Each structure stands twice: as C-alpha cells, then as structure tokens.
C-alpha cells in the first residue's frame, strides 16, 4: 500500500502539477481520478477528503496519521521537500525567488485567463449539454461561494466581452514575457528544471495548438525549444499517459509539431 494518494483530474493545469512533481521525484502514489466534468469534486465522498471541493488534493500517511494537502503549487513544494529524489528547487536563493515569482504569476495572473478561455470554449459547452436541473443542483453543492459563482458563470456562458478581451490580452502578454524569460535562461526562472517549469508547462503544453497565432516555431522559438525539452522528459510522458480524455491526446499532436 502506498503512503500517498493523489486526487486529480487530467494531467492539465492544476491537477497536472502534483502528478508531474510526484513522477519527477519518483514517489509512488495511488491515483484517484476525479472527473471534474461530472462534478465528482463536489460529491460527499470527495468533500470528506477536501471540504472545499477543489482539486487536486493529496493525502500522505505516516507516523503522524494522515495529512491532507491542497492547492497545487503548495502541494508541489511539499512533495519536493518531503521526499527524496531530484531537487526541484534551485540552490541559489535568487533563483528560488524567481521560481516562486513565476509560479505566482501563473497561478494568480496568467492562469485564470487561460482558464477563463478554456472554460468558455471547452468546459462550459460540454457541461451545458447536461440536464439543467441536474446542473443547478450540482452548482448548489459547491462549498466555496467564489467557486460557485465561477462555475455558474462558466456553465451559463456569462463571461462578458470585456472579461474575455482582458483574458486574451493577458494571455498574449504572458506568452510574450515567457518568451523573453526563456531567452535568458534554459528553464523558467533558472538554468535548472524546477517546479516553475512543472507549473507553467501544465498550462502551456498545448499552446502551439490552442494559441497558434501567439505561439509557434517562428513567433516564440524559445518557448518551443523549452516545450520540446520538457516534453521529452520521461516523467512527462508517464504523467500524460494517465490522462483519460482527448486533452492528453494533444500531447502527441504537439510533439509531432515541435520535434
């Protein structure tokens, strides 16, 4: 029996971060797939693990009993510190600061914009096909008021033109600045593969497919070089093989395009 159980959706965005961090560290874990599109994360059995109903969550059993950890980036930092294996934080203090800065930039500024676009074109339309009464009940079960409002907005397609324009502005700007960053260093924030790469890769791995006007061999050669380098990591291949939807299939499509 493994000591670590990870409750996650697809190897994508927040769920993909601890999946890949565990894989990189070589930590065996029990995978518990939470189907976000079926609202598994708001069902009583999952709320018993994480009452906030957010994914991912990780449990770690040991002499202390069982710990529950939440918030994808913080889980990654825990995984890196708690387990042996390659260090996924650079040794230099200024590099460590830069890694943290980029992760916050993604988690709080750029990521929500990727997410808003993704939800408006992917999650919302898929979920809207379901019975409206069932959807209303599912929304009512969401524990956090902010997440309840976010889901309602995504499901109803209520993002305003201004909100979408602002998200597109941030995505374009974020990609441009990431391109600059990767022209200065081999990896995000330092010259060594780190948690920042895992974080940002999980939200940018399909850029050549999802944002071809912004990210391509011609427009963003540094990002493409970096994507290829990260894509070729054994842990990335193993993690993306755990995907159950066609999101994971984008892995091979992108690889074909950048190799």
């Amino acid at each position, binding site marked *: 029996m493994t000591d670590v159980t990870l409750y996650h959706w697809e190897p994508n965005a927040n769920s993909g971060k601890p999946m890949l961090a565990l894989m990189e560290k070589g930590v065996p874990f029990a995978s518990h797939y939470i189907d976000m599109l079926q609202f598994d994360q708001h069902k009583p059995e999952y709320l018993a693990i994480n009452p906030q109903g957010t994914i991912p969550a990780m449990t770690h059993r040991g002499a202390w009993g069982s710990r529950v950890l939440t918030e994808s980036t913080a889980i990654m*930092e825990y995984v890196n510190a708690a387990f042996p294996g390659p260090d996924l934080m650079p040794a230099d203090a200024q590099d460590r600061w830069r890694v943290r*800065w980029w992760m916050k930039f993604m988690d709080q*500024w750029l990521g929500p914009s990727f997410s808003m676009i993704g939800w408006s074109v992917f999650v919302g339309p898929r979920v809207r096909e379901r019975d409206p009464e069932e959807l209303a009940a599912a929304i009512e079960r969401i524990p956090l008021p902010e997440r309840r409002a976010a889901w309602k907005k995504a499901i109803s397609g209520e993002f305003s033109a201004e909100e979408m324009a602002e998200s597109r*502005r941030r995505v374009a700007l974020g990609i441009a600045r990431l391109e600059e960053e990767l022209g200065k260093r081999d990896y995000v924030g330092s010259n060594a593969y780190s948690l920042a790469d895992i974080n940002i890769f999980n939200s940018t791995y399909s850029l050549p497919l999802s944002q071809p006007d912004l990210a391509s061999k011609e427009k963003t050669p540094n990002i493409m070089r970096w994507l290829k380098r990260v894509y070729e990591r054994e842990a990335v291949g193993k993690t993306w093989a755990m995907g159950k939807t066609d999101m994971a299939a984008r892995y091979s499509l992108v690889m074909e395009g950048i190799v």
Partner: protein
Amino acid sequence: MGEAVLYHGEPNGASLTVLAALAETGLDISCRPIELLAGARHHLPGLAEPIALDLGIEGEGPVLVIGGEAMTESVFLAQYLDELAGGCGLQPDDAYAHWDMLMWCRQITERLSPAAALLGNLASAQAAIAAIPADRFAALTGAIVSDDLRGRWQALHSGVVDPAQVADSEAKVDAAAQRCEDKLADGRDWLMGPFSIADLVTYSWLAGMESIRPAAFACRPLTRAWLARVAARPCVVTALSLATVSEPLRSWAPGPEINRWG
C-alpha cells in the same frame, strides 16, 4: 550577489512585511524610502531585468534590486531574505509546517491584502490621488507598465466607489480576523506556532484595519492581543521606526487586484 537596494514605501502592507523580515535577518542591505503615491516606484534606476516590477501582482509593494534585477512580492522577498541569511527562523524546516505556512500566506495575499488595500486606499489615499492634476496624473500612470495596476490607480483617481466591492472587502477583513482568532484559540503566541513570515504578512495587512474596520476586532480579543505581540517584536519595531510619517499604518497605495474570477 550584486549590489542590493531595497526600495520601500512607509512601513505598512507589503513594505512592512519586507522591512521587518530584513530586520529579523540582520542582513546589511541598503534601504531607500520612496514616495509610492508620487509614482517613484516606476522610475527606479539601473534596472536591467524589470519584469517582476512591470507585472508584479502585489501592486505598489517594495522592490529589492539586486544586480539590476527587480524583485517583488513581499512573501517571496521575506523567504529570499530568510534563505540568504542561512535560515533565520522565519520559515519552518518541516515540510508540512512549511506547506501550512505557505497556505496561510496565500490566503492572506489573495484575500486579505486586496481587501485591506481597497479599504485603506479609500480611507487615506484616494483624496491625495484624486487631487493629482490631470497632466501630472497622466505622466505618473503613463510610467506604469502594468495595465491592471494602472487601472487601480485610475479607479482611485476617478473617485468612483463600488459599494459591493467595499462590502466584500469588509467581509474579507472580518474573515481574516476570525481566521486569526480561530488559530490562536489553543493559546499559541504566534499563528503557526513558532514566529514566522505568516505573522509578519498577516500583521502587515491587518494592523492598519484596526482603525478602519474596528468591528472586525471588537469581539476578537485573541487577535488584538496577537497584534500587540507582533507590534512589540524587535524586527517590527525596527521596521516601524523607519516611518517618515506619524501614523504609518494609515499609509496606503494601490495594492493587489481583487480576484477577477473564482
């Protein structure tokens, strides 16, 4: 490490966190006060790598410049200083305790700090910002790279107040005070057990709310006592002594944005 200079505002909010962390480490880093409401943060000299200043999330927080690189975000600066000093005790060594502290700090920086900044600015900075003549305001905001930070300056300059945003911010301040009260209920002196960055960052955004939102503290004696304990910590005393005004906890400048979505 190249030449290091910490540019900071009055010791409140993000600037207070970093000034206190620096005092705790004992590191010899030059501190230079700047007038945040004059836009001085957007005219720092010798920047070769400004992205963290240009696109920082925290708003008008302190900037540590090392080797031409602008470093921002107060929690990460506090971590950096602690680590540069070889670990002076501001972060737990244990991985789980460290995760717990990071989670706490993220709650504070995502929820309390945007709320406190909004209420603080409305109470003490809006009049000054609104009084900036149009041509000078255009020049000041024209130097701000971040469109969203510039938008927060413009909202204060316009004088438009969204009552729903004010009510939401008051609720978030109340909630932060209650989180402290709950955490301190077992008799501990400091939020995470040992004194840590969590105490610094929480104090830095909450202490200024005592005068603006007294209702948040009225029935929370443990939180009031904890605020007094933090205020008496030598590193906080040192940071507050750098103030150039009589009441630094009433000094505010445009802060982080309130979450756009979810």
